[in-house]
């Protein structure tokens, strides 16, 4: 189970955040998730620290008192540092996001955000950086094949629509973690706003019904106020 070992891999993270409350919260969340986190409050301190250290990913606030987050990444990329960078910002406009990605950032999360959202995104960044190839895997009586994009249960193929497969795959890739609705919307439908109607719930219910009907012991749990989680056995 190579995938779950990677999942359990403890990341070494850099956090640049000038708000003490948010910094404190993130420090505790990352510790609980098993990651090691170095927290600095200014852009200058971040650039200095990066001279002598390396990390698996950096979380960067954009609105810092000394140097803005975009400039920090530009400087780091100029030095040849390829560490994945996630921007954390109160600016929600698409032009801001585009500017951040153009500066060399890898992902963009707007405040306020859910702890699970941050963890899921860090996971995704890490996975992308590690370039792990899709792996076939068995969970209980089910067999998931990311190459052929299908699930078989006791040898029988479960009839899934392409989107349903993508949804299952995203959940599977974050096994053991709670995946928030917004993260699913972005990963599966490329949608970065809340469409209002309980569209994700409806899609999850349909996927769950199909898996149950096929007799699979893959279970997708709904965690109120947080999101969904992929489990092997019904809780």
């Amino acid at each position, binding site marked *: 189970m190579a995938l779950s070992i990677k999942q359990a891999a403890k990341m070494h993270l850099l956090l640049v955040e000038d708000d003490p409350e948010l910094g404190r919260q993130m420090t505790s969340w990352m510790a609980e998730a098993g990651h090691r986190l170095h927290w600095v409050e200014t852009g200058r301190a971040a650039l200095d620290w990066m001279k002598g250290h390396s990390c698996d990913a950096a979380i960067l606030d954009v609105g810092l008192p000394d140097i803005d987050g975009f400039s920090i990444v530009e400087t780091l990329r100029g030095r040849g540092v390829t560490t994945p960078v996630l921007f954390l910002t109160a600016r929600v406009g698409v032009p801001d996001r585009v500017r951040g990605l153009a500066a060399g950032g890898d992902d963009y999360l707007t405040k*306020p955000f*859910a702890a699970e959202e941050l963890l899921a995104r860090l996971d995704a960044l890490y996975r992308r950086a590690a370039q792990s190839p899709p792996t076939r895997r068995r969970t209980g009586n089910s067999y998931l094949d990311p190459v052929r994009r299908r699930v078989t249960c006791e040898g029988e193929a479960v009839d899934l629509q392409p989107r349903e497969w993508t949804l299952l795959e995203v959940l599977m890739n974050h096994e053991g973690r709670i995946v928030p609705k917004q993260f699913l919307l972005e990963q599966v439908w490329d949608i970065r706003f809340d469409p209002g109607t309980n569209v994700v719930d409806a899609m999850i219910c349909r996927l769950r019904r199909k898996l149950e009907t096929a007799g699979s012991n893959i279970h997708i749990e709904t965690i109120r106020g947080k999101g969904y989680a992929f489990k092997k056995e019904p809780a």
Partner: protein
Amino acid sequence: MLALFVGTSIALTLIFVRSTVSRDLRRFDAAVVMNDLVEYAAIYASSGIKGVLDVFPAGQSSDSSAIRITSPDGIILFEEIPPGIHVYAWPAKPPSNDWSARKTVLQELTSPETELRLTIGAIRLRDGNYLWFGRTDEEAQRYQHNITIYLWLAGILAAAVALLPVIWYSHEVLIPIRSFTNSARRLHLPEGTARLMVPRAIPELQTLASVVNAGLDQILSLTRELQSTNDQLAHELRTPLARVRGNLENLLDKSDNAAAQDAAARSLEEIDRAAQLVQHILTIRGGDHGALRLYRQQTPVHQIITNLVDLFTPAAEDRNLTLGIQQGLDLVLNLDRELITQAISNLLDNALAYTPKGGKINLRWQAEGTGVVIFVEDTGPGVHREEMQMIWERYNRGSSAVVRHPGIGLGLSLVRAISTAHGGSVGVTNRVTGGASFWIKLPQG
């Protein structure tokens, strides 16, 4: 158009002048014939045929006149007729009128062999013989031809001179006004840095342009200020919301108390809704006031719609609704993909909320000009005529209404703001078959 007008007026002038000139020339020819008749009659009276014989060749330089003397019975006593005048059939006898001395009768002869007309006249001489004199209108026609050419030249020259102010007007006034209009068309776009450009136009237009441009500069600076205020407001609100949200999450995770967990979960939902509400209000205000920054890119409209229908289908089926697409042409337009997706999504959300079970929601789109109109049609109750305008701004007028109904009612205002920011429009009509048809019209960016 102008050329046609000038040509017609020259031609009309010409026709009039020609007919007048030709009448005058005829009279002139008649007078010449009359005059010569009397003159030759006088020569005949003093010197007889011989005198006429001597004088005629000397007096008539061209081939255009002829002379003949006949007896009262019509027997030709003498004649001098050049070849060109042989083609006319002269009268065989003198006119049978009651002739008195010096009375002359003129008549015009034509011939199928020539276009020239011959004017002839006869006069009774003292010895009872008749003197005939004829003259063709060759000279007159030559004059007329020359006059026609001169008239054309004069007409064209006059028209050219008259056109100069027209050309000046169209070059100095119409063309700048047209470019004025073209640049003015781009002005309404948000973040529009386009300005009226009238290089080489008349001073009055340049003044107008600079006055308008100064106004636009001021609007742009106000717009920028509004944008930065919006950004700042968002930042000031979002950071504390993020702190509160984090603490609530910790409470939800750490608390063993079910009531506390429930309270925390509900508060988390409220916070997310509040953050989204602020975002929507800022987007609506920005869109309505031209201060919404768009990130335009080549966007396949059909793909957005298909993607959204995919997303909404399970939710629609749960409500026992059929969600369909009427495929149109593949259209790629320069739009803010995310905002347009949100606008269409809001219309879908609206349709799902108002269409009763068993109903049908249909999406279709059609090209209009270089843009597109997207329709979301439902089989719901439709919209009251008096509400058709109001629904787009309900909850958007007073902030109090917004606060009382958090998270609801902003959907359509948002749709309108996004469309306006793209230079487009929105509307709703009731379908003949029942239900409403909401549309968004978007021009090519």
